[in-house]
């Protein structure tokens, strides 16, 4: 199973930047895929939904370093699946957020490696075959990086899961409420990205009333 999860992490690492950007690396998708692999698609969707709130806003423009959500979502679901109830949810989301930050750092390292690879091409004869080979090598390294992040994340996280299970005392309701409160900061930031309260308040309020009505109807 570890091999399958690592391969999935590798593919998700590729999708984020190097190849495609079809957004299978979004937490919503990545966690559901991981849940499917582990036979827990509903848990995967739940973890993916909560993690997605934390990645909704923000733009990966230029060379800015952003957290890498795909492999982290796989780690989150793999860990949450080993502990039932709110402890699993809390530990999974925490691991997902932490691993995404580490993943973002390794993306920076990968870009330095790419720089060295391309410099070597430029130093010699630049042929289509050589350039294509180095380009594909960089993508293979990115795939490997995503796989390693996933494998290390799951391995290290599994060792700490007992502590989480013994130490978590909040109810399921309170655990979810705590996560949603933290996520609400991202929802506010997204409203600002969409134009902000001043220009979008009417549309936002219509939606808000509809959303609240949807809960109680």
């Amino acid at each position: 199973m570890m091999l399958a999860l690592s391969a999935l992490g590798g593919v998700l690492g590729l999708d984020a930047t190097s190849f495609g950007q079809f957004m299978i690396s979004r937490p919503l998708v990545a966690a559901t895929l991981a849940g499917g692999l582990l036979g827990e698609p509903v848990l995967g969707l739940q973890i993916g939904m909560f993690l997605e709130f934390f990645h909704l806003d923000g733009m990966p423009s230029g060379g800015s370093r952003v957290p890498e959500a795909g492999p982290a979502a796989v780690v989150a679901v793999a860990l949450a699946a080993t502990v039932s109830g709110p402890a699993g949810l809390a530990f999974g989301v925490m691991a997902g957020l932490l691993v995404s930050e580490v993943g973002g750092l390794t993306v920076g390292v990968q870009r330095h490696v790419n720089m060295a690879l391309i410099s070597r091409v430029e130093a010699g004869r630049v042929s289509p075959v050589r350039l294509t080979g180095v380009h594909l090598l960089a993508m293979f390294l990115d795939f490997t990086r995503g796989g390693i992040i996933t494998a290390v994340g799951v391995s290290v996280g599994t060792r700490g899961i007992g502590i989480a299970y013994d130490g978590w005392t909040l109810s399921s309701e309170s655990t979810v409420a705590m996560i949603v409160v933290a996520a609400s900061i991202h929802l506010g930031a997204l409203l600002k990205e969409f134009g902000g309260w001043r220009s979008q308040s009417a549309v936002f309020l219509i939606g808000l009333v509809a959303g609240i009505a949807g809960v109680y109807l």
Partner: protein
Amino acid sequence: MILGGQLSAFLRSFAVQGSWNYRSLLGSGFAFSLIPFLRRHDLSSDELEATLRRHLEPFNSHPYLVGVALGAVARMEERREAPEVIRKFKEAIRGSLGSLGDSLVWGAWRPTTLLLGLLIAWAGAPPWISVTVFLIAYNAGHVALRYWSLHLGLAEGREVGRSLGEMNLSHVAGRIRSGGTLLLGILSGALFGSYLMGASAGWLWGTVGIAGFGLGHRFGARAPRLSGLTLVGVITLLMALGNL
């Protein structure tokens, strides 16, 4: 219609960021994606090497709109325009391709389609439904934009900048953002109504949630990164206290 070497370049454009790096940015991927066009230009091996070397220079663009530059440069190379003219064209267009793509895709289309997927998930649909709806909606726009941008670049050549300006794509982005705002409102109402107000001590959770929303809106992109790490700290602390 994209045919022959153009199809190959279109497919390669999906990997344009494969060797993204801090020196040439997207430059190496641009050269990699341009290869199918250059192979059709009947160049000697020395000419091909010189051309590829020129395109390894720093270049950046939104990945979905890189086709605009790829197509236009392919046309310019086909017409044997001076390297300096091509370099200046790339320098002139890179900024607008980046900011336009960021605003249209990262700032509007992606969050809007994600909000749609999240709403479907919240409503209790089976896992594969919300994921499939998001992927189909998002990638319909994504792949169409990639195809359109390469087609536009090939059709317009060096005049593509003027054509892009006339299309007013930022207006399209604005309309998508309005749709996204409506979905964001619905999702916020649903989350607050169900997960916060529905929990024990609901009013307390709700008040803190509204304060958090306001904080995120006030500080924009600066606040959220901290909130994820704060949550990690709070969960760790609670686990540690529970183990005492």
